[in-house]
C-alpha cells in the first residue's frame, strides 16, 4: 500500500508542478495567474451547464485513457487510440446512417458497432505482434494514419453531408444519438450524453477484469514478464491479441461517445487529439481505472474552461494546453519525483541504527 501512496503523491505533485509552471507562463505573458486559474476553473465548473460540458469532454478521454492504461497493464504500448476511435466512430456512424431501426434497438447496435470497429483496429497490431513480432508502437501509429485516410475517403465519397459539403459526414439520425433528452435537460442543454455512463461502466468493468478474473491475471502476467508467462504455460500470443482487441474496443467506444454523442458527424483530416491525450491520462492515472477516470475529468475541466479563461482575461487558451503538457512532463519524470520524495523522507528521518534489516540480495 505504501508504494501506491507515493505514486499517488507523485501524480498529484505533477499536477501541482504543471499548474505552477502555468502560473509562471501566465505571469510572463503579463496577466494575473490567480485570476487566470479562477476563470479556467470557473469556465469548467461554474454552472450546471459548464459541468455538463466538462463531463462531455471528459467522456472520450476516460475511454481512450482506459484503452492505453489497459494495454500498458498487459505490457503493450497503444499509441493507436486515435485511429481506433476514428474507426469506432465510423462503424457506428455507418450503421446509424444505413440501418433504420427504432432507437431502443439502434442504440445498442450502434454502440456494438463502435466496439467492433475499435476492436478490429486494435486487434490488427496485436495480431501482427503475436505472429511476426512487429512492434506495436510502430504498427499502431501506422494504423492511425490508415484510419485517417480511410475516413477521408469514405466521408468524401460514401457519406458526405451533401453534394457540395464533402469535408464532413452526414448527420446521424437523432435516433442514433447518444444524447439523452432528460440528461441534457438536467444539465441545461449541455453536451453530456450516454457516453459518460458507458465510460464509467467500462472503467468498472476493466477494474473487475484486471483484479478479479483469471483473464486479467493472465494478461497482467504477460505484461509484467512475457518470458515468465511463457514458462508457466500461459498462452502469451493469445493474451497479446486479446489485450489489443480490448484496448481497441475501449477506444472505439470513445469514438461513439465523441462522434455520436458530443458531435453528430465526422470530419475529414482530423486525427482526434483525445487518442493521444489518452496516453497522458493513463500515465497520470497510474494505469488504474479509477486514476484514469479522475485524470480524464481533470483534463475535461481544463479543456472546457480554457476558452472561458481567454475570453475573460485575454490569456491565450494555448496556456491551458501548455499546462497540460507540463503536467505530462512531470508525470513522465515520475522517477525523478520518486527520488525527490525518498530524499526528503530520508532527510526527515534520523539516521536509522545499524541493524541488518534483511539479508543482502546476492553479493552486489
Amino acid at each position, binding site marked *: 500500500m505504501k508504494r501506491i501512496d507515493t505514486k499517488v503523491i507523485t501524480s498529484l505533485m505533477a499536477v501541482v508542478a504543471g499548474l505552477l509552471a502555468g502560473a509562471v507562463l501566465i505571469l510572463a505573458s503579463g496577466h494575473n495567474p490567480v485570476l487566470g486559474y479562477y476563470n479556467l476553473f470557473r469556465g469548467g465548473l461554474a454552472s450546471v451547464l459548464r459541468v455538463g460540458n466538462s463531463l462531455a469532454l471528459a467522456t472520450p478521454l476516460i475511454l481512450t485513457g482506459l484503452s492505453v492504461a489497459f494495454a500498458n497493464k498487459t505490457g503493450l504500448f497503444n499509441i493507436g487510440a486515435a485511429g481506433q476511435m476514428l474507426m469506432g466512430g465510423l462503424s457506428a456512424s455507418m450503421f446509424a446512417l444505413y440501418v433504420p431501426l427504432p432507437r431502443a434497438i439502434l442504440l445498442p447496435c450502434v454502440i456494438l458497432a463502435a466496439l467492433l470497429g475499435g476492436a478490429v483496429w486494435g486487434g490488427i497490431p496485436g495480431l501482427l505482434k503475436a505472429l511476426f513480432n512487429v512492434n506495436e508502437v510502430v504498427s499502431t501509429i501506422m494504423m492511425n494514419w490508415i484510419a485517417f485516410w480511410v475516413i477521408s475517403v469514405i466521408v468524401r465519397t460514401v457519406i458526405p453531408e451533401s453534394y457540395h459539403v464533402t469535408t464532413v459526414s452526414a448527420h446521424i439520425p437523432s435516433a442514433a444519438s447518444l444524447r439523452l433528452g432528460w440528461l441534457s435537460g438536467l444539465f441545461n442543454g449541455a453536451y453530456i450524453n450516454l457516453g459518460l455512463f458507458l465510460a464509467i461502466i467500462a472503467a468498472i468493468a476493466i477494474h473487475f477484469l484486471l483484479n478479479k478474473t483469471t483473464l486479467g491475471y493472465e494478461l497482467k502476467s504477460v505484461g509484467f514478464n512475457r518470458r515468465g508467462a*511463457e514458462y508457466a504455460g500461459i498462452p502469451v500470443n493469445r493474451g497479446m491479441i486479446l489485450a489489443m482487441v480490448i484496448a481497441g474496443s475501449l477506444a472505439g467506444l470513445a469514438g461513439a461517445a465523441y462522434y455520436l454523442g458530443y458531435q453528430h458527424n465526422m470530419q475529414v483530416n482530423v486525427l482526434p487529439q483525445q487518442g493521444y491525450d489518452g496516453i497522458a491520462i493513463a500515465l497520470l492515472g497510474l494505469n488504474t481505472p479509477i486514476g484514469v477516470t479522475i485524470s480524464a475529468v481533470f483534463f475535461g475541466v481544463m479543456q472546457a474552461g480554457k476558452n472561458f479563461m481567454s475570453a475573460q482575461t485575454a490569456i491565450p487558451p494555448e496556456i491551458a494546453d501548455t499546462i497540460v503538457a507540463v503536467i505530462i512532463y512531470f508525470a513522465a519524470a515520475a522517477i525523478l519525483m520518486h527520488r525527490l520524495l525518498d530524499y526528503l523522507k530520508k532527510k526527515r528521518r534520523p539516521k536509522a541504527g545499524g541493524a541488518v534489516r*534483511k539479508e*543482502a540480495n546476492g553479493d552486489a
Partner: protein
Amino acid sequence: MENIVEMRNIRKEFPGIVANDDVTVELRKGEIHALLGENGAGKSTLMSVLFGLYQPDGGEIIVRGKRERINGPNAANALGIGMVHQHFKLVHNFTTTENIILGMEPPLLDIKKAAKRVKEFSEMYGLNVDPYARIEDISVGMQQRVEILKMLYRSAEVLIFDEPTAVLTPQEISELMKIMRTLIEQGKSIVLITHKLKEIKAVADRCTVIRRGKVVGTVDVGAVTEAAMAEMMVGRQISLSVDKEAREPGEVVLSINNLSVLNVRKTAAVKNFSLDVRAGEIIGLAGVDGNGQTELVEALTGLRNVQSGGVLLDGKDITHESTRTRIKDGMAHIPEDRQNRGLILDFTLEDNFIIEQYMDEPFSKNGLLRRDAIRENADKIIDNFDVRAGEGPRSVVRSMSGGNQQKAIVGREMELHPRLLLAVQPTRGLDVGSIEYIHKRLVQLRDAGGAILLVSLELDEIMALSDKIAVISHGQLVGILDADKTDENEIGLMMTGIRKGDGS
C-alpha cells in the same frame, strides 16, 4: 610477514542493508587469502570497495603501509590491485592481445610488440595463452587466463579472484590452482572469493569467514577442517552429505529420443540426444555451462521448438505439445533463470504460487479468482518451504531476497506433485542450510516415485544427489555413469567431451 593490503573496520551500507559491518581483513604479501561466506554475506561488496567500485561509509584501506583512498578501478590499478570478475569483461571479436591492452593502448599501436609482451607474460606464469587467438574461439578457462594476463600486464601485485571456479570444469579448476601457486611464487598476493570449501582447503593459506556482513574470524586453513569452516560460515552445524538410500527405479517417465535442438543463433545446440529418466530416480546432467543444457531443458518444457527427435512423458508423445499441456501431464520445472522465467517479480508471492494453476479449481471458478484458496495455498507453501518475506503472501516478489525467491519457486514446483521434475540449478544462490533442505526434499520426491532430471553446474551437487550421471558436452551425450561407481576426474574428463578409453 608484512601486510600488503589492510582493510580496517570497513563499513558499507546499502538502503536497508549493512553489507559490511566493521570488517577488518589483512592480506599478507605472498599469500592466498580466501574470503568465505554465503551468497549475500558481503564478500563481493568488500572486494568492490578494495577495487574502488564502492566507497566505504567507514574504515580505512592501507596499501603497503600507506593509507589510500581508492576512488575507482583506475586508482586501484595504479596501486597494483587487479580483479578478475565473475563474469569476464572481454570483447568477443577481439584477439587476446587486443583485449589485454584495451584501455592502455599507446596512440601508435604496435600490435606485434604488444603480442610479444603478452607471450612473455604468458610463458612466465605458465598461462599458455595464444596472443593472436580470438576470444570467441577459446574456452572459458582460457578466457579467464586472458583476464589474469590483463591484470599482470597492468603490473598488478594484488590479484582478486571473484568466484573464479564457477564456470570451470574440474580439470580447469586444478589448472587454475596451479596458476595461482605460480603467481604466488612470483611474489604476487591473491584474494580468493568463494563459497566452496574444498577449493579453500586445496589452495588457500588463510581464510577469513564473513557472515551477514561481519567477520566471524580468520583461520589458518591447514589447522581447521572443512566442517569447521562450514559451521563458521553458516553459524550452525550442517551436514555436508545427502542421506539417500539405494532404490530400485521404476518405469520410464521421461524418454528423450534422438533429440536435436537449435539455439538462438540457429546452430545445433543439442545433437541427437537420448536419455531415459525413470520413476524414483534422480539423473544428474553434468556439463560445463553452455553445452546445450539450457536448450535441452527448453525443448523438454516446450519453450523451444524441436528440430528432430521426440520426447515421451509417461509414454505420451509430448514433442509438440504446449507448455501448459506438459504441466498438466505432470511436468514441473525449476528454471535456470529465476527472475526472467520463474517469477513475475511485480506480482505478489501468493499470485506467483498459482501461476501454473490459476485457471483450475480451487483457485478460480467460472473465470473468477478465489482469493481465499489462493491465500491458503500461499500460507501452505510459505510454511512448508520456509519462504521468508516481509509481508507474507502479500509481499511483492521483487522485494524478496534471491534465496527466498528460489525457495518460493522450488516450493511451488514441488507442490505440483509432479511425475517429472526438471530441476535446473535448484540451489543456486542459496545458503548451505537451504541447500541441505532442498536436497532433502528432492530426495523425498524421488523416494515417493517422482522422476528427477537434475541439471547443475555444481559437480558436488550432482555427485551428492544423483543415482545416475549423464554427461553432456557440445550438445551430445558423452555417457551415462552410475553415481557410486565414478569420481570427479572421470566426469570432469567426460565434460570436455572425452570418453573413457578414448586415449586422447
